[in-house]
C-alpha cells in the first residue's frame, strides 16, 4: 500500500515539474515485516560471462533453472557451474520455453541489448535485475521504467553502491544540513584510460578486417537491435563499452555509480540543461567510439528548499580543481565526487558514496553525526542482489528499483547525448523527452532498431 502511494507521488512528479518528485528509499516503505517464507525463486540469467557471473554468484540462495548467452566460450565457466540449468543462446527462445519455469531474470548483457531483453521479461511478468546503465537510450529507459511500474514486477538496477550503508549515511548528513545547501557537485572518473585501443575503451575507427566469427558465438544475436556490421573481437566480449552503438562510454559506465549519491541525496531529478565538451578526434573515429575525455556540465533547478545545482562530470582522467577544504598532503581518488555546500564540503569515492567524509578531517571529527533514520540494506552493497530477491518475495521494492534507477540513468544518458553534440548547450524537457533547442539531438532519444527487433 505504502508502495503504491509512493508510486503515485513519483508518477505525479515525473508528469509535472521536473523538480517535483522525491525518491524514497525502498526500505522506508518496505519495513522488515511480511517476508515470505524461505521458498526459493526460480531464476534465469542472460549474459553470464562478465558481470553476470558475479551477479549470479550473489544469488546462490535461489535456483537457477536457465542460463542464456550468445557466447558459449565466454559463458563456459558459468555454464559448467550449473549443470542442471538449461542453456540457451537466444533469450527469446528461452523465455518462450521457460515461461512457466522462471520467476525472475538477471540481465548482464552489453548496454545495447538491455532494453529488448528487460522489456521482453517485464511483458511476461518476470521480475528483473538489470545491470547499469538501465538501457542504451533515454527513450528505452523511460519505457522500461513505465512498463515495470505498470506490470508491478520487482526490479533492481545493478548499481550495487545504492545498497551501501554509506550512501544512506550521506543521505542522513545532507538531511541534517551537515554542509548546508549544496550548489555545486563535481564528479570524475579515470575511465577510459585512453590511448591503447586494447587496454580499456577503444578509441579508433571501425576496423576494416573481417575475421571469421568464432563458432562459439552467435554474432547476429550479439548485435541484437543494432544495425548489422561484421564481427570483430574489438567489440566483444570486452570492449563494447567504448563504441557508440553498443556501450555508453565512461559516463554511462561509471556515472550510474559515481553520480548516484548526489542524485539521490540531493534529490536532483531531471536536469534542465546539459552541455558537454570532449577531446577532438578524427571523424571516422568520432563517429564510432567515445572520446578519450569529456567534461559534462548539468544544471538542475531548485527542488523545494534545495537550491539549483550545477553538476560537472569529468572523465578520461580529467578532474575537478582541488577543493579548498582538502588539507595539504591529502589527495583525490581516481574516481569520486565532491558536494560543495554553503557550510562545507563532502568528498566520496566511486560506488555508493564509498569512503564518504566531510573535509577537512578535522571538521569530520567535530561533526555530531545524526541518528540513523534510514534502514540499512542487509549486507550493504554486497547485499544488492539479495535485496532484489527479497523484493521479489515480499513485494516491497528493492533499493534501486527502476523507479529510481530509471531517472538516474536518464540523467546519465542525457550527458552522453550531449557528447554527441559537443559544445552545444541542450535544453531538456523531461516530460516529453525532448531537447527543445536543438532538433538534431532528438534523433538519439529513440534510435531505430534493426528489422525484426522492434518490440
Amino acid at each position: 500500500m505504502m508502495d503504491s502511494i509512493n508510486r503515485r507521488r513519483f508518477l505525479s512528479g515525473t508528469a509535472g515539474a521536473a523538480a517535483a518528485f522525491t525518491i524514497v528509499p525502498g526500505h522506508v516503505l518496505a519495513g522488515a515485516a511480511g517476508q515470505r517464507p524461505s521458498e526459493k525463486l526460480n531464476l534465469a540469467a542472460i549474459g553470464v560471462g562478465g558481470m553476470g557471473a558475479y551477479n549470479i554468484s550473489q544469488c546462490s540462495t535461489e535456483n537457477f533453472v536457465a542460463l542464456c548467452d550468445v557466447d558459449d566460450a565466454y559463458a563456459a565457466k558459468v555454464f559448467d557451474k550449473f549443470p542442471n540449468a538449461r542453456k540457451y543462446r537466444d533469450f527469446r527462445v528461452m523465455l518462450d520455453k521457460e515461461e512457466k519455469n522462471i520467476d525472475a531474470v538477471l540481465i548482464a548483457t552489453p548496454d545495447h541489448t538491455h532494453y529488448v531483453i528487460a522489456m521482453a521479461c517485464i511483458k511476461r511478468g518476470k521480475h528483473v535485475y538489470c545491470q547499469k546503465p538501465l538501457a542504451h537510450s533515454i527513450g528505452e529507459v523511460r519505457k522500461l521504467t513505465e512498463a515495470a511500474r505498470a506490470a508491478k514486477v520487482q526490479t533492481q538496477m545493478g548499481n550495487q553502491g545504492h545498497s551501501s550503508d554509506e550512501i544512506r549515511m550521506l543521505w542522513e548528513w545532507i538531511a541534517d544540513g551537515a554542509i548546508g545547501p549544496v550548489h555545486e557537485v563535481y564528479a570524475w572518473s579515470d575511465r577510459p584510460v585512453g590511448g591503447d585501443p586494447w587496454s580499456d575503451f577503444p578509441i579508433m575507427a571501425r576496423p576494416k578486417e573481417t575475421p571469421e566469427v568464432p563458432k562459439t558465438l552467435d554474432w547476429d544475436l550479439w548485435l541484437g537491435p543494432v544495425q548489422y556490421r561484421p564481427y570483430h573481437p574489438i567489440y566483444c566480449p570486452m570492449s563494447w563499452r567504448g563504441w557508440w552503438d553498443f556501450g555508453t562510454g565512461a559516463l554511462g559506465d561509471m556515472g550510474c555509480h559515481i553520480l548516484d549519491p548526489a542524485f539521490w541525496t540531493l534529490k536532483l531529478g531531471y536536469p534542465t540543461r546539459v552541455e558537454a565538451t570532449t577531446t577532438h578526434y578524427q571523424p571516422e573515429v568520432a563517429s564510432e567510439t567515445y572520446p578519450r575525455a569529456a567534461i559534462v556540465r548539468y544544471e538542475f533547478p531548485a527542488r523545494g528548499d534545495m537550491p539549483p545545482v550545477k553538476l560537472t562530470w569529468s572523465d578520461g582522467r580529467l578532474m575537478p580543481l582541488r577543493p579548498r577544504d582538502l588539507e595539504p598532503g591529502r589527495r583525490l581518488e581516481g574516481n569520486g565526487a565532491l558536494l560543495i555546500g554553503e557550510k562545507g564540503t563532502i568528498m566520496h569515492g566511486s560506488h555508493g558514496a564509498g569512503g564518504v567524509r566531510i573535509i577537512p578531517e578535522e571538521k569530520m571529527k567535530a561533526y555530531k553525526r545524526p541518528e540513523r533514520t534510514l534502514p540499512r540494506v542487509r549486507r550493504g552493497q554486497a547485499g544488492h542482489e539479495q535485496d532484489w530477491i527479497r523484493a521479489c518475495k515480499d513485494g516491497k521494492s528493492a533499493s534501486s528499483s527502476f523507479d529510481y534507477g530509471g531517472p538516474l540513468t536518464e540523467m546519465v544518458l542525457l550527458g552522453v547525448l550531449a557528447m554527441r553534440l559537443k559544445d552545444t548547450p541542450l535544453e531538456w524537457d523531461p516530460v516529453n523527452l525532448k531537447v527543445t533547442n536543438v532538433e538534431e539531438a532528438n534523433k538519439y532519444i529513440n534510435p531505430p532498431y534493426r528489422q525484426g527487433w522492434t518490440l
Partner: protein
Amino acid sequence: MKEKKMTRRGLMSTAAGVAAFTIVPRHVLGGAGQTPPSEKLNIAGVGIGGQGGADLRALGSQNIVALCDVDWQHAAGTFKRYPQAKQYKNFREMLDKEDKNIEGVVVATPDHLHAIVSMAAIKRGKHVYCEKPLTHTVFEAKALAEAAREHKVATQMGNQGQAGEEVRLLCETIWDGAIGQVREVHVWTDRPLHGTNEWYWPQGVDRPKDTPPVPETLDWDLWLGPAPTRPYNPAYLPFIWRGWWDFGTGALGDIGCHSLDPVFRALKLGYPTSVEACCTLVNNETYPVASRVTYEFPARGDLAPVKLHWYDGGMKPPRPPELEDGRRWDTNGALYIGDKGKMLGGRLIPESRQKEYGKPPQKLERSPGHYQEWVNACKGGKPAGSNFPDHAGLLAQVVLLGNVALRPALKAEKFLGTKLLWDAKEFKFTNVPEANQYLTKEYREGWGL
C-alpha cells in the same frame, strides 16, 4: 644610445615589480625608432626550414648574410632564396666565423634548441629574434631574459599577434572598466588536433621502435643538440617534434605564448601562486592528447586575483549565455569574465553590448609591425613588444610552469588532485619538491647554456 639605456632601465624596474610589464607609448620614449636609418641590419637565421623561413621573409628588407640548418633538404628552399648568404649546419661554427658580420640572429629551431642558440648569440652581443615558446624549460626562459637584459641586446619572441590591433583594443577596453574586475579567464585550443580532421602533430603516443637510416642531408647529432641521444626517426621531424617531451612543449607551449599573451597584457599578470593540471593518460615520451591547466594569480595593485584556465585537445569552457545563438563558438579562443560583463577575444558579448560600447579611449601606441618592432629596437629604437626581459621571458616561464604540472611523474596516483604552489621569489614549488626537477633539464655532454 643613452636614451635607449635609460628606457631599458625604466622597463627593467617595472619588470622586477609586481606589474611585470608596461607598454610604454612611443612618444614617452622619444622618436628614436621613427626615422629608419639607411643602414640595413645583417641577420643570420638558425633553423630556416619551417617558421624560420617565414620569419626571414618578413625581415626581407634587411640583409640576410648567413643561414644555418641541420637539415639541408628542409632548408633547401630558403637557401635558394638567399644565394648570397653563407650556409652552415652548425650554429656554433657559424657564430664563430660570422661573428663580425652579423648583428642579429633569428632562431627558429625546434624548442629544445631555442635557449642554447639564443644564449650563444646574446653572449656575443647579437640581437635575437626567437620563435615561441621562448625556451624548452622554465629556467632557460628566466636565464635568457636575464642575459638579454645584461647584454643589452634587442630581443623579440615570435608571438606576432602581440603587435596587432585586437590585443590593444582588448587591453584598452578592460582598462576602461568595460567588464569590471576580471577574476576568471578561459583560453582554449584544438591543438594538437586540427579541428576534428587531423593531427597537427601526434601526442599521447609511444617512442617508435624502428631505426631507419639518417638521411644524408641531415646532421642528426646536431638536431638532437642538448637532448639525450636516441636513434633517428622521421616521427620527430620536421615540425612534429612538438609533441615529444625531449624536443617540444606540446599544445600549451606552442599556442600558449600566442593566446595567453593578451591575458598577460590586459590583466598585467606576473608569476602565478599556483598551477594545477589534469590531463588524459600521459607517458614519458609525448605530451597528453588533452589537458586542462589552471593558474592562480594574486591581486596586483587594484586588480583582483585571477584564475586562468587553459584547455587543449579540443576541450572548451562552457558556452557563455551572452553569446548569441548561432554565433561561432570557435575551436580556439579566450573568454574574459568580468564583474560587469564578458569579452570573447577582443569583443564584448553579446555583440549589442560591443556596439553600444563602441571603441575604448586609445591608451596604447599602435605597432609598426611585429618584425619591424625588433628591427627598430636593434637600431636603437624602443624595445620590442615581446622582448625577453620585460615580457616574453615571464610569459614563457608561466606557460612552461603549466607543462611541469603535466609531467607523467606528477600524474601518478599519489599526486591526484595536487595543486602546485609556486614561490616566485624562491623560484620553486614549495609543496611538491619532486616538481622542481622539471624546471630545468639535463643537457647532453658538450651542450649547455
